[in-house]
């Protein structure tokens, strides 16, 4: 009896700590939701627990302001982000799979070197070579376009690493051999036989590729700098929300922030099972 009481005491304590952490995780979002429905003057008075009715007014003010200052508005930014993120994700996952497949299925001179090389460059962050990337963009005339944000996704070493890990257990060479005997070309075999078998791993990697591209602020804010008025992506729009203007309207800011968060939270809750499983594989780390 005594043992059982002690047991549940431990469990209750752990639950309490976890619930505190859960509340801590949710609290800023709760305040965000509430504040987006309040007037700026009310927000300045402190933390409020109950929502108001000013959301649509805040939203309207936000849209009026962005059109008055001719900066990109929320929906244009979201569209721009989609134009960048969707092809980035597709290219990243497709070419990482192709590269990993080339390294797994074929035996050729330099294969081990190529694999060692990809493993070694995984840790090199893109931030350190930004000056050179600007140069590449000006040589190729891609400065201020979406291309330099999309094309580098073809060479994503981390994604290659995880696709290769997956292939070592999830792809049998026999099936590929069988396809060869049936006379399928090598490229066809990859597209029609191998890719479907890799779907689970590709889906996980696609989620992380999408999130990383969608949330990226640094590279777009440098490479799109000259044409921010029409080409700004979502994080750049968020940056523009933060003004140091004395007359800034908090209602507007919170309404804008909320609208940037909602799609992510919905997508996250829908996919959380895969995301948590993907993180467990060590799939992402900024």
């Amino acid at each position, binding site marked *: 009896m005594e043992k059982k009481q002690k047991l549940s005491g431990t469990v209750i304590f752990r639950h309490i700590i976890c619930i505190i952490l859960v509340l801590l995780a949710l609290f*800023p979002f709760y305040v965000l939701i509430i504040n987006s429905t309040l007037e700026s003057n009310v927000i300045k008075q402190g933390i409020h627990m109950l929502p108001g009715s000013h959301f649509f007014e805040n939203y309207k003010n936000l849209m009026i302001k962005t059109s008055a200052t001719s900066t990109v508005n929320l929906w244009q930014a979201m569209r721009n982000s989609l134009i960048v993120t969707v092809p980035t994700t597709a290219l990243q996952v497709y070419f990482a799979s192709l590269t990993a497949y080339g390294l797994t299925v074929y035996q050729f001179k330099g294969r081990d070197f190529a694999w060692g090389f990809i493993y070694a460059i995984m840790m090199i962050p893109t*931030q350190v070579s930004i000056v050179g990337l600007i140069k590449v963009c000006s040589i190729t005339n891609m400065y201020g376009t979406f291309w330099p944000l999309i094309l580098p996704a073809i060479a994503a070493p981390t994604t290659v690493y995880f696709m290769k890990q997956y292939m070592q257990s999830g792809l049998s060479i026999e099936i590929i051999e069988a396809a060869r005997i049936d006379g399928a070309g090598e490229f066809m075999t990859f597209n029609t036989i191998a890719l479907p078998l890799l779907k689970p791993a590709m889906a996980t990697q696609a989620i992380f590729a999408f999130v990383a591209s969608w949330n990226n602020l640094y590279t777009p804010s440098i490479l799109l700098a000259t044409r921010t008025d029409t080409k700004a992506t979502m994080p750049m729009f968020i940056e523009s929300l933060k003004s140091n203007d004395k007359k800034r309207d908090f209602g507007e800011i919170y309404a804008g922030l909320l609208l940037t968060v909602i799609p992510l939270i919905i997508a996250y809750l829908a996919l959380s099972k895969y995301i948590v499983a993907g993180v467990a594989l060590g799939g992402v780390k900024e």
Partner: protein
Amino acid sequence: MNKNKKKTVEYGKYGLLFIAPFFIVFLVFQFYPLLYTIFKSFMFDKKTGRKKVTTVFGLGNYINYVFGGNGEVWQAMLITIVLWLLNFIPQLLLSLLLAAWFTDMQYKLKGQGAYKVIMYMPNIITAATIAVLFYSLFDVHGSMTELLRHMGLAGNEGVLTKGWWSLFIIAFIQFWMWYGNTMIVLIAGIMGINPSLYEAAMVDGATPRQQFFQITVPLLKPILQFTMVTSAIGGLQMYDIPQLFNEGKPLVNVAGTTVESTRTIVMLIKSYINAGPSQNYGRASAYSVVLFVITLVVSMVFYKLTSEKN
């Protein structure tokens, strides 16, 4: 077997073909830019008035700005490391504790799945959004500042004018965004440990505490190293949160010089890339090389540690 081998050699050219796009794109968008940045660090490349002056500068950028001058690059590096330590140490401790709880067979916690999902959630949200959200909360007129005032913790000027407050809030945001991620990685690591080890320990009468420190922690070492290095490399590139939270401010006075108290190394590099009078690609490149070398050292230490293991 022999026949098989021959076949793969025969098809070998496809292997090269399939990996070619990766390497071409890598050369154009990562390798050349890296070499060019290193090259540029030996050039004088600065906007003066309307025209841009580019000349060979030798070690000039290194002599004048990295190892000489006001030492801003080391200052920014120090701040970056402080910010990383302030968030990583508590993050690792909490993640370890939670991972131990969530994998504890004796006291099973119900609702774990939901806890994990919610604790991880901040990680998926755009860092820019989170930074502007916290900025709005802690601004002079922000909701949290008002709350702190009620508690007597903040004065009229708010908290963003205080260096330590800003540092701690930025570190807290990083901690808050990342501990869920680290926890999930560690849980996976603990689950990978052979359960018979725990059974044997239990038979020998080891307490849960002993099991944790004598089985879990030593066997988790490779994963802890991985977590630490990836977090350190990520931490060195820290930009979004400090930039959008307080733009490197507030300026504080340290030993008679004015210092930007929350400006990280990447923020410093970007300040010399931005169009304007302070644009100086040579200087930005030299600082990039410093960051590259430090990142390289950190990852080499990691490769060394892991290869010793094997």
